[in-house]
């Protein structure tokens, strides 16, 4: 994955190639302990045929000449087994320019090779996933792998995106707001981040995506990149909007305001009232009052199964708001159980006029408007 010198081994040789210092990592790699190897020539690590062809001396000479040597080769462990390593020899010189010694770092590539093979197998598997975008980013956010799902989702071919920054799929607003950085940072911090948001396709169209980003670390815990999985939710979102629209329509239908007389409207309250519904009810009632110039509104509760303090509160708010607009409210359809509940709950309906039947309420309304004669409750209309 990454070439990190610190992950291998770092040992020091003197000017003749004798091991002068050793390292735990080197012991792990070669099985030689510091005791075993300090004071011995580095050629002990080379295979016999290499020693025969003088390879160790040639490596040191090359390093001395160029200052540094990068090489690969087989190394022999204490038990005789061999490992394929990549190693770097760096020359240490004194102020006079004379060679003081060498620093040697090596990394076992056998494991790395296996890792690479495994990675390739995973990538082939991932590549075949068509429904999800599964891609790899490096630690900077540059795209390092692509798959069929990603191609389908965004319309881009691998060649167009590999090496590009992942922000190419984000909207301008998101990019400006630092959305990419905050997602990657959150992934590192939390171990994983899941977001939903708009992304842009190759053709410029937007799609609503569900994104999951997780960091990838190597053995030492270093961040080496991210894996990003994305799914197109546009369809799901369209579904949700449709459901919401339908819900709104149903709400509209279930709050029919009926004009029963000039300047008198009736709102039959049906079913249970939750906060959302109650707020919508109040809004539409008030709008009807404004539209019809209704001086009296009759709130019919015969269809309400039970009154609790919440319902009563919404009712009172509605009545008060109507009053502020200049409209008087009459409660109608009060059943015995409702009357009992209201009194038991200790709700003060604050002088709200109330009648048991809609017919009685309507009669009262007409009396108040002076349409029919007889006693009306009060000479004025301000409660």
């Amino acid at each position: 994955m990454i070439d990190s010198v610190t992950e291998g081994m770092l040992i020091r040789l003197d000017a003749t190639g004798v091991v002068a210092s050793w390292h735990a990592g080197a012991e792990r790699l070669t099985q030689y302990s510091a005791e075993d190897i300090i004071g011995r020539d580095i050629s002990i690590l080379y295979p016999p045929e290499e020693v025969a062809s003088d390879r160790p001396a040639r490596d040191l000479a090359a390093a001395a000449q160029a200052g540094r040597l990068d090489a690969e080769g087989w190394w022999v462990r204490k038990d005789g087994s061999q490992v394929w390593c990549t190693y770097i020899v760096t020359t240490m010189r004194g102020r006079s320019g004379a060679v003081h010694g060498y620093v040697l770092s090596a990394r076992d590539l056998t494991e790395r090779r296996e890792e690479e093979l495994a990675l390739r197998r995973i990538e082939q598997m991932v590549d075949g996933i068509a429904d999800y975008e599964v891609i790899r980013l490096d630690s900077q956010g540059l795209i390092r792998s692509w798959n069929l799902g990603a191609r389908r989702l965004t319309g881009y071919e691998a060649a167009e995106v590999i090496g590009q920054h992942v922000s190419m799929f984000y909207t301008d607003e998101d990019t400006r707001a630092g959305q990419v950085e905050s997602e990657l940072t959150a992934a590192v911090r939390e171990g994983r981040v899941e977001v939903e948001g708009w992304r842009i396709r190759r053709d410029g169209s937007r799609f609503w995506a569900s994104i999951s980003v997780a960091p990838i670390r190597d053995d030492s815990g270093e961040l080496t990149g991210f894996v990003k999985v994305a799914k197109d939710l546009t369809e799901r979102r369209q579904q949700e909007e449709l459901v919401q629209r339908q819900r709104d329509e149903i709400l509209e239908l279930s709050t029919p305001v009926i004009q029963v007389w000039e300047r008198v409207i009736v709102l039959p309250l049906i079913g249970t009232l939750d906060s959302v519904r109650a707020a919508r009810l109040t809004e539409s009632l008030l709008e009807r009052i404004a539209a019809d110039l209704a001086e009296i509104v009759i709130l019919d509760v015969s269809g309400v199964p039970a009154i609790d303090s919440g319902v009563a509160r919404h009712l009172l708010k509605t009545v008060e708001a109507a009053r502020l607009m200049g409209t008087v409210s009459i409660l109608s359809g009060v059943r015995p159980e409702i009357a009992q509940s209201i009194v038991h709950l200790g709700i003060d309906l604050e002088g709200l006029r109330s009648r048991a039947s809609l017919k009685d309420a309507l009669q009262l309304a007409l009396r108040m408007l002076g349409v029919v004669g007889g006693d009306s409750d009060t000479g004025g209309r301000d409660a």
Partner: protein
Amino acid sequence: MTATVEASYGGTPSGPPGSAVLAPVAAVTIDGEADLLRVRSALRTEAQAAGLGLTATTKLVTAGSELARNILRYADRGHGVVTVQQVTAGHRSGVRAQFTDYGPGIADLDEVMRDGFSSCGSLGIGLPGSRRLVDEFMIESAAGRGTTVIIAQWDR
């Protein structure tokens, strides 16, 4: 002693991090009455941009007017800052506004946020009312350290 009262019907004022898109901010320094107009104007503009209906907008602007007026009346020399911005979280869009003053602060938040609290012209008038007008409301205050109120109103 800092007391925080949080009342939200739907999450924190700015939505879950990483999924809320915050738009550019309109900032108004509150120094005088004329600034109340600018606050209301900013709220109206953002409300329209977010697609809030008339009722939601009216409630938002009124709550903002109350809170800005509080800053004017009670903060040290009437100083404070109001910021207004449009926010999106998921498929909802809305308006988020922050009211910060450097006034005396509120010593007992619980008392002031209690309904029916009437302080005859002192700090906290209109706070419970403003809270009822908006979808999300958060207040932080400490005696001697000023007050910050953050509100949010959504289109649905």
